[in-house]
Protein backbone atom coordinates (compact mmCIF):
# COMPACT_ATOMS: atom_id res chain seq x y z
CA UNK A 1 0.00 0.00 0.00
CA UNK A 2 2.62 2.51 1.09
CA UNK A 3 4.45 1.97 -2.19
CA UNK A 4 1.41 3.34 -4.00
CA UNK A 5 1.45 6.57 -2.00
CA UNK A 6 2.14 9.55 -4.21
CA UNK A 7 4.26 12.46 -3.16
CA UNK A 8 2.20 15.65 -3.08
CA UNK A 9 4.92 17.59 -4.93
CA UNK A 10 4.61 15.48 -8.02
CA UNK A 11 0.85 16.05 -8.12
CA UNK A 12 0.46 19.58 -6.82
CA UNK A 13 -2.78 20.45 -8.58
CA UNK A 14 -4.79 17.32 -7.78
CA UNK A 15 -3.44 17.45 -4.23
CA UNK A 16 -4.55 21.05 -3.79
CA UNK A 17 -7.97 20.27 -5.24
CA UNK A 18 -8.43 17.37 -2.83
CA UNK A 19 -6.77 18.68 0.33
CA UNK A 20 -7.91 22.30 0.48
CA UNK A 21 -11.49 21.77 1.64
CA UNK A 22 -10.90 19.23 4.45
CA UNK A 23 -7.79 20.95 5.83
CA UNK A 24 -9.39 24.37 5.64
CA UNK A 25 -12.57 23.18 7.37
CA UNK A 26 -10.65 21.39 10.09
CA UNK A 27 -8.46 24.41 10.80
CA UNK A 28 -11.25 26.98 10.76
CA UNK A 29 -14.08 25.10 12.47
CA UNK A 30 -12.27 22.73 14.76
CA UNK A 31 -8.74 23.84 15.58
CA UNK A 32 -9.67 27.53 15.88
CA UNK A 33 -12.62 27.01 18.27
CA UNK A 34 -10.62 24.59 20.42
CA UNK A 35 -7.69 27.03 20.49
CA UNK A 36 -9.99 29.81 21.68
CA UNK A 37 -11.31 27.60 24.50
CA UNK A 38 -7.74 26.76 25.44
CA UNK A 39 -6.80 30.46 25.57
CA UNK A 40 -9.93 31.28 27.58
CA UNK A 41 -8.94 28.72 30.19
CA UNK A 42 -6.05 31.05 31.08
CA UNK A 43 -8.31 34.09 31.30
CA UNK A 44 -10.48 35.82 33.85
CA UNK A 45 -13.77 37.71 33.87
CA UNK A 46 -13.12 41.44 33.97
CA UNK A 47 -16.65 42.60 33.24
CA UNK A 48 -20.10 41.17 32.66
CA UNK A 49 -19.31 40.29 29.06
CA UNK A 50 -15.58 40.73 28.68
CA UNK A 51 -12.85 38.23 29.34
CA UNK A 52 -9.20 39.11 29.59
CA UNK A 53 -6.69 36.44 28.72
CA UNK A 54 -4.13 37.19 31.38
CA UNK A 55 -2.25 33.91 31.52
CA UNK A 56 -3.51 33.17 35.01
CA UNK A 57 -3.61 29.62 36.30
CA UNK A 58 -6.37 30.39 38.81
CA UNK A 59 -8.99 28.46 36.84
CA UNK A 60 -6.92 25.31 36.94
CA UNK A 61 -6.19 25.85 40.64
CA UNK A 62 -9.89 26.16 41.32
CA UNK A 63 -10.63 23.07 39.22
CA UNK A 64 -8.37 20.99 41.45
CA UNK A 65 -10.22 22.01 44.60
CA UNK A 66 -11.82 19.05 46.33
CA UNK A 67 -15.36 20.08 45.31
CA UNK A 68 -14.56 19.75 41.62
CA UNK A 69 -11.99 17.00 41.96
CA UNK A 70 -14.55 14.83 43.75
CA UNK A 71 -17.09 15.37 40.94
CA UNK A 72 -14.38 14.44 38.47
CA UNK A 73 -13.51 11.26 40.36
CA UNK A 74 -17.18 10.43 40.75
CA UNK A 75 -17.75 10.82 37.00
CA UNK A 76 -14.84 8.47 36.41
CA UNK A 77 -16.29 5.95 38.89
CA UNK A 78 -19.76 6.14 37.32
CA UNK A 79 -18.29 5.75 33.83
CA UNK A 80 -16.14 2.80 34.96
CA UNK A 81 -19.11 1.08 36.61
CA UNK A 82 -21.21 1.64 33.50
CA UNK A 83 -18.45 0.15 31.35
CA UNK A 84 -18.11 -2.87 33.63
CA UNK A 85 -21.86 -3.59 33.58
CA UNK A 86 -21.94 -3.15 29.80
CA UNK A 87 -19.04 -5.63 29.51
CA UNK A 88 -20.77 -8.19 31.74
CA UNK A 89 -24.07 -7.90 29.87
CA UNK A 90 -22.48 -7.48 26.46
CA UNK A 91 -19.95 -10.31 26.39
CA UNK A 92 -22.45 -13.20 26.41
CA UNK A 93 -24.56 -11.32 23.87
CA UNK A 94 -21.56 -10.89 21.58
CA UNK A 95 -20.71 -14.61 22.06
CA UNK A 96 -24.28 -15.58 21.24
CA UNK A 97 -24.21 -13.51 18.03
CA UNK A 98 -20.84 -14.98 17.02
CA UNK A 99 -21.97 -18.57 17.44
CA UNK A 100 -25.51 -18.06 16.14
CA UNK A 101 -26.67 -19.80 12.98
CA UNK A 102 -25.55 -17.74 9.96
CA UNK A 103 -29.08 -16.82 8.98
CA UNK A 104 -29.80 -15.38 12.43
CA UNK A 105 -26.55 -13.49 12.89
CA UNK A 106 -27.28 -10.37 10.80
CA UNK A 107 -30.69 -9.98 12.41
CA UNK A 108 -29.28 -10.22 15.93
CA UNK A 109 -26.67 -7.62 14.96
CA UNK A 110 -29.39 -5.41 13.55
CA UNK A 111 -31.32 -5.85 16.80
CA UNK A 112 -28.34 -4.47 18.71
CA UNK A 113 -27.74 -1.67 16.23
CA UNK A 114 -31.24 -0.33 15.76
CA UNK A 115 -31.40 1.29 19.23
CA UNK A 116 -27.96 2.77 18.51
CA UNK A 117 -29.44 4.54 15.49
CA UNK A 118 -32.43 5.78 17.48
CA UNK A 119 -32.33 9.25 18.95
CA UNK A 120 -30.51 9.36 22.29
CA UNK A 121 -32.99 11.77 23.82
CA UNK A 122 -35.95 9.62 22.85
CA UNK A 123 -34.31 6.53 24.33
CA UNK A 124 -33.57 8.35 27.59
CA UNK A 125 -37.11 9.67 27.71
CA UNK A 126 -38.59 6.21 27.03
CA UNK A 127 -36.55 4.71 29.86
CA UNK A 128 -37.61 7.52 32.19
CA UNK A 129 -41.27 6.88 31.41
CA UNK A 130 -40.78 3.24 32.35
CA UNK A 131 -38.98 4.08 35.58
CA UNK A 132 -41.35 6.71 36.95
CA UNK A 133 -43.26 6.13 40.20
CA UNK A 134 -46.27 5.06 38.09
CA UNK A 135 -44.14 3.24 35.56
CA UNK A 136 -43.99 -0.43 34.71
CA UNK A 137 -40.76 -1.02 36.60
CA UNK A 138 -42.47 -0.02 39.83
CA UNK A 139 -45.45 -2.18 38.96
CA UNK A 140 -43.16 -5.13 38.36
CA UNK A 141 -41.35 -4.60 41.65
CA UNK A 142 -44.73 -4.27 43.37
CA UNK A 143 -45.75 -7.61 41.91
CA UNK A 144 -42.56 -9.26 43.19
CA UNK A 145 -43.13 -7.69 46.61
CA UNK A 146 -46.64 -9.08 46.80
CA UNK A 147 -45.39 -12.49 45.72
CA UNK A 148 -42.80 -12.42 48.51
CA UNK A 149 -45.47 -11.34 50.95
CA UNK A 150 -47.70 -14.23 49.84
CA UNK A 151 -44.80 -16.67 50.27
CA UNK A 152 -44.26 -15.42 53.81
CA UNK A 153 -47.91 -16.04 54.76
CA UNK A 154 -47.57 -19.49 53.23
CA UNK A 155 -44.83 -20.43 55.70
CA UNK A 156 -46.78 -18.88 58.53
CA UNK A 157 -44.97 -15.56 58.84
CA UNK A 158 -46.47 -12.09 58.97
CA UNK A 159 -47.19 -10.67 55.50
CA UNK A 160 -45.07 -7.73 54.38
CA UNK A 161 -46.49 -4.23 54.50
CA UNK A 162 -48.33 -2.99 51.43
CA UNK A 163 -46.08 -1.99 48.53
CA UNK A 164 -45.31 1.69 48.21
CA UNK A 165 -43.86 2.79 44.89
CA UNK A 166 -40.17 3.60 45.18
CA UNK A 167 -38.44 6.53 43.58
CA UNK A 168 -36.30 4.86 40.92
CA UNK A 169 -35.48 8.03 39.03
CA UNK A 170 -33.37 11.03 40.06
CA UNK A 171 -30.58 9.17 41.83
CA UNK A 172 -27.21 7.60 41.04
CA UNK A 173 -28.78 4.23 40.29
CA UNK A 174 -30.91 5.79 37.57
CA UNK A 175 -27.83 7.48 36.04
CA UNK A 176 -25.89 4.22 35.83
CA UNK A 177 -28.89 2.33 34.44
CA UNK A 178 -29.50 5.08 31.88
CA UNK A 179 -25.84 5.10 30.83
CA UNK A 180 -25.82 1.30 30.48
CA UNK A 181 -28.98 1.46 28.41
CA UNK A 182 -27.51 4.05 26.07
CA UNK A 183 -24.01 2.59 25.75
CA UNK A 184 -24.66 -1.14 25.55
CA UNK A 185 -24.56 -1.27 21.72
CA UNK A 186 -21.18 0.53 21.77
CA UNK A 187 -19.78 -2.38 23.79
CA UNK A 188 -21.38 -5.27 21.91
CA UNK A 189 -20.26 -4.28 18.39
CA UNK A 190 -16.46 -4.22 18.96
CA UNK A 191 -16.71 -7.38 21.09
CA UNK A 192 -18.56 -9.10 18.28
CA UNK A 193 -16.05 -8.07 15.65
CA UNK A 194 -13.17 -9.42 17.79
CA UNK A 195 -14.95 -12.70 18.58
CA UNK A 196 -15.92 -13.14 14.94
CA UNK A 197 -12.27 -13.11 13.91
CA UNK A 198 -11.32 -15.64 16.56
CA UNK A 199 -10.28 -19.08 15.34
CA UNK A 200 -13.04 -21.35 16.58
CA UNK A 201 -10.91 -24.49 16.35
CA UNK A 202 -8.87 -23.20 19.30
CA UNK A 203 -11.98 -23.34 21.48
CA UNK A 204 -12.75 -26.81 20.21
CA UNK A 205 -9.19 -27.90 20.93
CA UNK A 206 -9.42 -26.59 24.47
CA UNK A 207 -12.71 -28.41 25.04
CA UNK A 208 -11.35 -31.63 23.49
CA UNK A 209 -8.30 -31.51 25.72
CA UNK A 210 -10.51 -31.56 28.77
CA UNK A 211 -10.91 -27.96 29.84
CA UNK A 212 -14.44 -27.06 30.92
CA UNK A 213 -16.47 -24.33 29.30
CA UNK A 214 -15.60 -21.85 32.04
CA UNK A 215 -11.89 -22.59 31.93
CA UNK A 216 -11.90 -22.40 28.13
CA UNK A 217 -13.68 -19.09 28.33
CA UNK A 218 -11.21 -17.59 30.80
CA UNK A 219 -8.02 -19.05 29.30
CA UNK A 220 -8.79 -19.05 25.57
CA UNK A 221 -11.70 -16.82 24.60
CA UNK A 222 -10.97 -13.81 26.83
CA UNK A 223 -7.23 -13.53 26.00
CA UNK A 224 -7.91 -13.87 22.28
CA UNK A 225 -10.73 -11.34 22.40
CA UNK A 226 -8.60 -8.88 24.43
CA UNK A 227 -8.24 -6.29 21.62
CA UNK A 228 -12.02 -6.24 21.22
CA UNK A 229 -12.52 -5.93 24.97
CA UNK A 230 -10.10 -3.00 25.12
CA UNK A 231 -11.79 -1.34 22.13
CA UNK A 232 -15.23 -1.85 23.66
CA UNK A 233 -14.10 -0.50 27.01
CA UNK A 234 -12.63 2.62 25.41
CA UNK A 235 -15.64 3.22 23.19
CA UNK A 236 -17.95 2.96 26.21
CA UNK A 237 -15.80 4.66 28.83
CA UNK A 238 -14.97 7.82 26.88
CA UNK A 239 -18.53 8.93 26.01
CA UNK A 240 -19.81 7.79 29.42
CA UNK A 241 -17.21 9.98 31.14
CA UNK A 242 -18.38 13.03 29.18
CA UNK A 243 -22.09 12.18 29.44
CA UNK A 244 -24.33 15.19 29.86
CA UNK A 245 -27.89 14.23 29.02
CA UNK A 246 -28.35 11.14 31.22
CA UNK A 247 -27.18 12.66 34.52
CA UNK A 248 -29.03 15.86 33.68
CA UNK A 249 -32.39 14.19 33.06
CA UNK A 250 -32.20 11.06 35.20
CA UNK A 251 -29.92 12.11 38.03
CA UNK A 252 -30.70 13.82 41.31
CA UNK A 253 -29.00 16.82 42.86
CA UNK A 254 -26.04 14.69 43.99
CA UNK A 255 -25.52 12.79 40.75
CA UNK A 256 -24.19 15.53 38.51
CA UNK A 257 -21.21 14.59 36.43
CA UNK A 258 -18.38 16.71 35.09
CA UNK A 259 -20.25 17.63 31.89
CA UNK A 260 -23.11 19.10 33.93
CA UNK A 261 -20.65 21.25 35.88
CA UNK A 262 -19.09 22.47 32.62
CA UNK A 263 -22.52 23.28 31.20
CA UNK A 264 -23.41 25.30 34.30
CA UNK A 265 -20.32 27.51 33.86
CA UNK A 266 -21.52 28.48 30.41
CA UNK A 267 -25.20 28.96 31.16
CA UNK A 268 -26.20 29.83 34.72
CA UNK A 269 -22.90 30.52 36.46
CA UNK A 270 -21.56 32.42 33.44
CA UNK A 271 -17.92 31.78 34.27
CA UNK A 272 -16.54 30.95 30.84
CA UNK A 273 -12.82 30.84 31.72
CA UNK A 274 -13.45 28.33 34.50
CA UNK A 275 -15.70 26.25 32.23
CA UNK A 276 -12.99 26.33 29.56
CA UNK A 277 -10.41 25.05 32.07
CA UNK A 278 -12.75 22.23 33.15
CA UNK A 279 -13.39 21.18 29.55
CA UNK A 280 -9.69 21.04 28.82
CA UNK A 281 -9.12 18.95 31.93
CA UNK A 282 -11.77 16.55 30.60
CA UNK A 283 -10.02 16.45 27.22
CA UNK A 284 -6.67 15.77 28.91
CA UNK A 285 -8.30 12.91 30.82
CA UNK A 286 -9.41 11.41 27.49
CA UNK A 287 -5.89 11.77 26.12
CA UNK A 288 -4.47 9.96 29.13
CA UNK A 289 -6.95 7.10 28.66
CA UNK A 290 -6.07 6.83 24.96
CA UNK A 291 -2.34 7.02 25.69
CA UNK A 292 -2.66 4.21 28.26
CA UNK A 293 -4.47 2.10 25.70
CA UNK A 294 -1.90 2.64 22.95
CA UNK A 295 0.96 1.95 25.39
CA UNK A 296 -0.72 -1.34 26.20
CA UNK A 297 -1.19 -2.09 22.50
CA UNK A 298 2.51 -1.44 21.83
CA UNK A 299 3.52 -3.72 24.68
CA UNK A 300 1.39 -6.51 23.26
CA UNK A 301 3.10 -6.02 19.89
CA UNK A 302 6.57 -6.20 21.49
CA UNK A 303 5.70 -9.40 23.32
CA UNK A 304 4.65 -11.06 20.10
Amino acid sequence: MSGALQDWKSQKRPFAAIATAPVFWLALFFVAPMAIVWLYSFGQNVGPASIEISGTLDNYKRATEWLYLSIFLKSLAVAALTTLICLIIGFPVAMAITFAAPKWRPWLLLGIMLPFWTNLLIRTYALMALMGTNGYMNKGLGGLWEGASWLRTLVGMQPLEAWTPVQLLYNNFAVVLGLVYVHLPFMVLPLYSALDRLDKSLIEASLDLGAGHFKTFMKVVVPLAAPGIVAGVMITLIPALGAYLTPDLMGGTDSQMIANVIERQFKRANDWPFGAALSFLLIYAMFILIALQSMRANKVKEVR
Partner: protein
Amino acid sequence: MFNRTAIAPLEYTRKLWMRSWVGLTMLFLYAPLLVLMIFSFNDSRRNIEWKGFTLKYYEKALNNDSLVEAMVNSLTIAFLATIVSLVIGALAAVMLWRFRFPFKGLVEGTMSLPIIVPEICLGVAFLIFFAKIDWPTDLPWPLNLSAITIAHITFCFPFVAMVVRARLASFNMEEEEAAKDLGATDWQAFRDVLLPHIKPGLIAGALLAFTLSLDDFVITFFTSGPDTITFPVKVYSMVRFSVTPEVNAASTILILLTVILTFIALKLQGVKGIAQSH
Protein backbone atom coordinates in the same frame (compact mmCIF):
# COMPACT_ATOMS: atom_id res chain seq x y z
CA MET B 1 -35.41 -23.51 16.48
CA PHE B 2 -37.18 -26.84 16.61
CA ASN B 3 -34.06 -28.62 15.61
CA ARG B 4 -33.84 -31.84 17.63
CA THR B 5 -30.19 -32.67 17.03
CA ALA B 6 -27.90 -32.61 20.06
CA ILE B 7 -26.35 -29.27 20.91
CA ALA B 8 -22.76 -29.19 19.66
CA PRO B 9 -20.16 -27.75 22.04
CA LEU B 10 -19.82 -24.49 20.14
CA GLU B 11 -23.51 -23.91 19.60
CA TYR B 12 -23.66 -21.57 22.55
CA THR B 13 -26.63 -19.83 21.04
CA ARG B 14 -28.74 -22.95 21.39
CA LYS B 15 -28.20 -23.15 25.12
CA LEU B 16 -31.11 -22.03 27.21
CA TRP B 17 -29.25 -19.63 29.51
CA MET B 18 -27.57 -17.97 26.55
CA ARG B 19 -30.90 -17.56 24.81
CA SER B 20 -32.53 -16.09 27.89
CA TRP B 21 -29.58 -13.72 28.32
CA VAL B 22 -29.91 -12.43 24.76
CA GLY B 23 -33.69 -12.32 25.12
CA LEU B 24 -33.50 -10.30 28.32
CA THR B 25 -30.97 -7.91 26.80
CA MET B 26 -33.22 -7.35 23.81
CA LEU B 27 -36.15 -6.83 26.19
CA PHE B 28 -34.07 -4.26 28.08
CA LEU B 29 -33.17 -2.48 24.83
CA TYR B 30 -36.61 -2.55 23.24
CA ALA B 31 -39.22 -2.57 26.02
CA PRO B 32 -38.92 1.16 26.78
CA LEU B 33 -39.21 2.06 23.11
CA LEU B 34 -42.14 -0.28 22.47
CA VAL B 35 -44.02 0.94 25.55
CA LEU B 36 -43.47 4.51 24.42
CA MET B 37 -44.75 3.75 20.94
CA ILE B 38 -47.80 1.84 22.18
CA PHE B 39 -48.78 4.51 24.68
CA SER B 40 -48.56 7.24 22.06
CA PHE B 41 -51.93 5.81 20.93
CA ASN B 42 -53.35 5.78 24.45
CA ASP B 43 -56.39 7.91 25.14
CA SER B 44 -55.18 9.14 28.50
CA ARG B 45 -52.82 11.84 29.67
CA ARG B 46 -51.16 9.45 32.09
CA ASN B 47 -48.79 6.89 30.74
CA ILE B 48 -49.81 3.82 32.67
CA GLU B 49 -53.35 2.63 32.03
CA TRP B 50 -54.70 1.76 28.64
CA LYS B 51 -57.84 3.81 28.03
CA GLY B 52 -58.43 3.06 24.36
CA PHE B 53 -56.96 3.83 20.98
CA THR B 54 -56.63 7.40 19.79
CA LEU B 55 -54.69 9.38 17.25
CA LYS B 56 -55.40 12.69 18.92
CA TYR B 57 -51.85 13.15 20.22
CA TYR B 58 -50.53 12.74 16.70
CA GLU B 59 -52.96 15.41 15.60
CA LYS B 60 -51.82 17.62 18.48
CA ALA B 61 -48.15 17.01 17.73
CA LEU B 62 -48.66 17.80 14.05
CA ASN B 63 -50.62 20.94 14.94
CA ASN B 64 -47.99 22.06 17.40
CA ASP B 65 -46.24 24.63 15.21
CA SER B 66 -43.07 24.87 17.27
CA LEU B 67 -42.69 21.08 17.29
CA VAL B 68 -43.16 20.85 13.52
CA GLU B 69 -40.79 23.76 13.02
CA ALA B 70 -38.19 22.01 15.18
CA MET B 71 -38.62 18.83 13.12
CA VAL B 72 -38.24 20.74 9.83
CA ASN B 73 -35.14 22.47 11.22
CA SER B 74 -33.63 19.15 12.29
CA LEU B 75 -34.23 17.51 8.93
CA THR B 76 -32.90 20.55 7.04
CA ILE B 77 -29.74 20.64 9.14
CA ALA B 78 -29.25 16.87 8.81
CA PHE B 79 -29.71 17.08 5.04
CA LEU B 80 -27.27 19.97 4.55
CA ALA B 81 -24.73 18.57 7.02
CA THR B 82 -24.83 15.17 5.30
CA ILE B 83 -24.15 16.60 1.85
CA VAL B 84 -21.24 18.78 2.94
CA SER B 85 -19.78 16.09 5.25
CA LEU B 86 -19.97 13.60 2.42
CA VAL B 87 -17.93 15.83 0.10
CA ILE B 88 -15.37 16.92 2.70
CA GLY B 89 -15.15 13.46 4.26
CA ALA B 90 -14.61 11.74 0.91
CA LEU B 91 -11.95 14.29 -0.07
CA ALA B 92 -10.21 13.83 3.28
CA ALA B 93 -10.26 10.04 2.85
CA VAL B 94 -8.77 10.24 -0.64
CA MET B 95 -6.17 12.76 0.54
CA LEU B 96 -4.97 10.51 3.37
CA TRP B 97 -5.10 7.38 1.27
CA ARG B 98 -3.33 8.64 -1.79
CA PHE B 99 -0.76 11.27 -0.89
CA ARG B 100 2.39 11.62 1.10
CA PHE B 101 2.70 15.17 2.43
CA PRO B 102 4.38 17.05 5.29
CA PHE B 103 2.64 16.90 8.71
CA LYS B 104 0.45 14.05 7.51
CA GLY B 105 0.40 12.42 10.94
CA LEU B 106 -0.64 15.70 12.51
CA VAL B 107 -3.48 16.21 10.01
CA GLU B 108 -4.64 12.63 10.44
CA GLY B 109 -4.55 12.86 14.23
CA THR B 110 -6.38 16.18 14.29
CA MET B 111 -9.04 14.77 12.01
CA SER B 112 -9.81 11.96 14.43
CA LEU B 113 -10.13 14.39 17.34
CA PRO B 114 -13.73 15.51 16.68
CA ILE B 115 -14.68 11.84 17.13
CA ILE B 116 -12.85 11.55 20.46
CA VAL B 117 -13.35 14.96 22.09
CA PRO B 118 -16.39 14.84 24.40
CA GLU B 119 -19.50 16.40 22.92
CA ILE B 120 -19.76 18.86 25.77
CA CYS B 121 -16.29 20.27 25.03
CA LEU B 122 -17.06 20.60 21.33
CA GLY B 123 -20.38 22.29 22.16
CA VAL B 124 -18.67 24.75 24.47
CA ALA B 125 -16.01 25.45 21.83
CA PHE B 126 -18.65 26.33 19.25
CA LEU B 127 -20.52 28.51 21.72
CA ILE B 128 -17.38 30.55 22.40
CA PHE B 129 -16.28 30.53 18.76
CA PHE B 130 -19.55 31.85 17.32
CA ALA B 131 -19.82 34.43 20.11
CA LYS B 132 -16.24 35.55 19.53
CA ILE B 133 -16.56 36.07 15.78
CA ASP B 134 -20.01 37.67 16.16
CA TRP B 135 -21.72 35.18 13.90
CA PRO B 136 -25.01 36.86 12.88
CA THR B 137 -28.00 35.26 14.60
CA ASP B 138 -30.85 37.16 12.96
CA LEU B 139 -30.56 35.77 9.45
CA PRO B 140 -33.68 34.57 7.61
CA TRP B 141 -34.43 30.83 7.49
CA PRO B 142 -32.58 28.62 6.52
CA LEU B 143 -29.45 30.77 6.88
CA ASN B 144 -30.04 31.07 10.62
CA LEU B 145 -29.32 27.36 10.85
CA SER B 146 -25.80 27.86 9.48
CA ALA B 147 -24.03 27.87 12.85
CA ILE B 148 -25.61 24.55 13.89
CA THR B 149 -24.98 23.08 10.44
CA ILE B 150 -21.31 24.07 10.57
CA ALA B 151 -20.97 22.46 14.00
CA HIS B 152 -22.64 19.28 12.76
CA ILE B 153 -20.42 19.06 9.67
CA THR B 154 -17.36 19.32 11.91
CA PHE B 155 -18.24 16.22 13.91
CA CYS B 156 -19.81 14.29 10.99
CA PHE B 157 -17.17 14.49 8.30
CA PRO B 158 -14.43 12.60 10.21
CA PHE B 159 -16.86 9.67 10.48
CA VAL B 160 -17.52 9.81 6.74
CA ALA B 161 -13.76 9.97 6.10
CA MET B 162 -13.24 6.90 8.32
CA VAL B 163 -15.89 4.82 6.55
CA VAL B 164 -14.79 5.86 3.05
CA ARG B 165 -11.13 5.21 3.85
CA ALA B 166 -11.94 1.69 5.00
CA ARG B 167 -13.58 1.15 1.63
CA LEU B 168 -10.65 2.70 -0.27
CA ALA B 169 -8.29 0.17 1.27
CA SER B 170 -9.76 -2.49 -1.02
CA PHE B 171 -9.31 -0.40 -4.17
CA ASN B 172 -6.90 -1.75 -6.72
CA MET B 173 -4.73 1.11 -7.96
CA GLU B 174 -4.04 -0.78 -11.19
CA GLU B 175 -7.64 -0.23 -12.24
CA GLU B 176 -7.08 3.49 -12.19
CA GLU B 177 -3.75 3.18 -13.97
CA ALA B 178 -5.43 1.07 -16.64
CA ALA B 179 -8.07 3.75 -17.10
CA LYS B 180 -5.38 6.40 -17.49
CA ASP B 181 -3.40 4.26 -19.91
CA LEU B 182 -6.53 3.97 -21.97
CA GLY B 183 -6.70 7.74 -22.20
CA ALA B 184 -8.87 8.80 -19.26
CA THR B 185 -8.09 12.14 -17.67
CA ASP B 186 -7.58 12.45 -13.88
CA TRP B 187 -11.14 13.60 -13.49
CA GLN B 188 -12.56 10.83 -15.67
CA ALA B 189 -10.56 8.19 -13.82
CA PHE B 190 -11.86 9.58 -10.54
CA ARG B 191 -15.47 9.76 -11.69
CA ASP B 192 -15.72 6.47 -13.59
CA VAL B 193 -13.33 4.20 -11.67
CA LEU B 194 -12.72 5.40 -8.13
CA LEU B 195 -16.15 6.85 -7.39
CA PRO B 196 -18.12 3.69 -8.30
CA HIS B 197 -15.78 1.67 -6.10
CA ILE B 198 -16.28 3.83 -3.00
CA LYS B 199 -20.04 4.20 -3.52
CA PRO B 200 -21.01 1.73 -0.76
CA GLY B 201 -18.72 3.63 1.62
CA LEU B 202 -20.35 6.89 0.59
CA ILE B 203 -23.84 5.50 1.24
CA ALA B 204 -22.84 4.14 4.64
CA GLY B 205 -21.09 7.41 5.47
CA ALA B 206 -24.10 9.47 4.42
CA LEU B 207 -26.46 7.42 6.58
CA LEU B 208 -24.08 7.67 9.51
CA ALA B 209 -23.76 11.46 9.10
CA PHE B 210 -27.52 11.88 8.75
CA THR B 211 -28.23 9.87 11.91
CA LEU B 212 -25.49 11.59 13.90
CA SER B 213 -26.78 15.00 12.91
CA LEU B 214 -30.42 14.16 13.60
CA ASP B 215 -29.44 12.60 16.92
CA ASP B 216 -27.25 15.34 18.27
CA PHE B 217 -28.45 17.19 21.31
CA VAL B 218 -25.49 18.48 23.30
CA ILE B 219 -23.61 20.37 20.58
CA THR B 220 -26.84 21.78 19.16
CA PHE B 221 -27.94 22.84 22.64
CA PHE B 222 -24.93 25.15 22.81
CA THR B 223 -25.15 26.52 19.26
CA SER B 224 -28.90 27.00 18.90
CA GLY B 225 -30.64 30.27 19.59
CA PRO B 226 -34.29 30.95 20.44
CA ASP B 227 -35.26 30.87 16.76
CA THR B 228 -33.26 27.81 15.85
CA ILE B 229 -34.74 25.02 17.92
CA THR B 230 -34.09 21.50 16.64
CA PHE B 231 -36.19 18.46 17.42
CA PRO B 232 -33.96 17.03 20.21
CA VAL B 233 -33.68 20.46 21.84
CA LYS B 234 -37.47 20.87 21.68
CA VAL B 235 -38.10 17.41 23.12
CA TYR B 236 -35.58 18.17 25.85
CA SER B 237 -37.45 21.26 26.96
CA MET B 238 -40.77 19.40 26.77
CA VAL B 239 -39.40 16.53 28.89
CA ARG B 240 -37.82 18.99 31.29
CA PHE B 241 -40.88 21.08 31.96
CA SER B 242 -43.96 19.04 31.20
CA VAL B 243 -44.16 15.50 29.95
CA THR B 244 -47.01 15.23 27.51
CA PRO B 245 -48.24 12.38 25.31
CA GLU B 246 -47.42 14.67 22.39
CA VAL B 247 -43.76 13.86 22.99
CA ASN B 248 -44.62 10.15 22.71
CA ALA B 249 -46.33 10.77 19.38
CA ALA B 250 -43.51 12.92 18.01
CA SER B 251 -40.91 10.40 19.23
CA THR B 252 -42.78 7.53 17.59
CA ILE B 253 -42.69 9.40 14.29
CA LEU B 254 -38.93 9.86 14.61
CA ILE B 255 -38.37 6.22 15.62
CA LEU B 256 -40.34 5.09 12.58
CA LEU B 257 -38.27 7.43 10.42
CA THR B 258 -35.10 5.80 11.81
CA VAL B 259 -36.45 2.31 11.14
CA ILE B 260 -37.40 3.28 7.58
CA LEU B 261 -33.95 4.76 6.97
CA THR B 262 -32.34 1.61 8.34
CA PHE B 263 -34.42 -0.56 6.04
CA ILE B 264 -33.54 1.59 3.03
CA ALA B 265 -29.91 1.06 3.99
CA LEU B 266 -30.61 -2.66 4.23
CA LYS B 267 -32.13 -2.75 0.78
CA LEU B 268 -29.13 -0.92 -0.61
CA GLN B 269 -26.41 -2.87 1.14
CA GLY B 270 -27.79 -6.00 2.75
CA VAL B 271 -27.71 -6.65 6.48
CA LYS B 272 -24.09 -7.72 6.38
CA GLY B 273 -22.94 -4.53 4.72
CA ILE B 274 -24.54 -2.45 7.46
CA ALA B 275 -22.93 -4.56 10.13
CA GLN B 276 -19.53 -4.10 8.53
CA SER B 277 -19.88 -0.37 8.22
CA HIS B 278 -19.74 -0.04 12.01
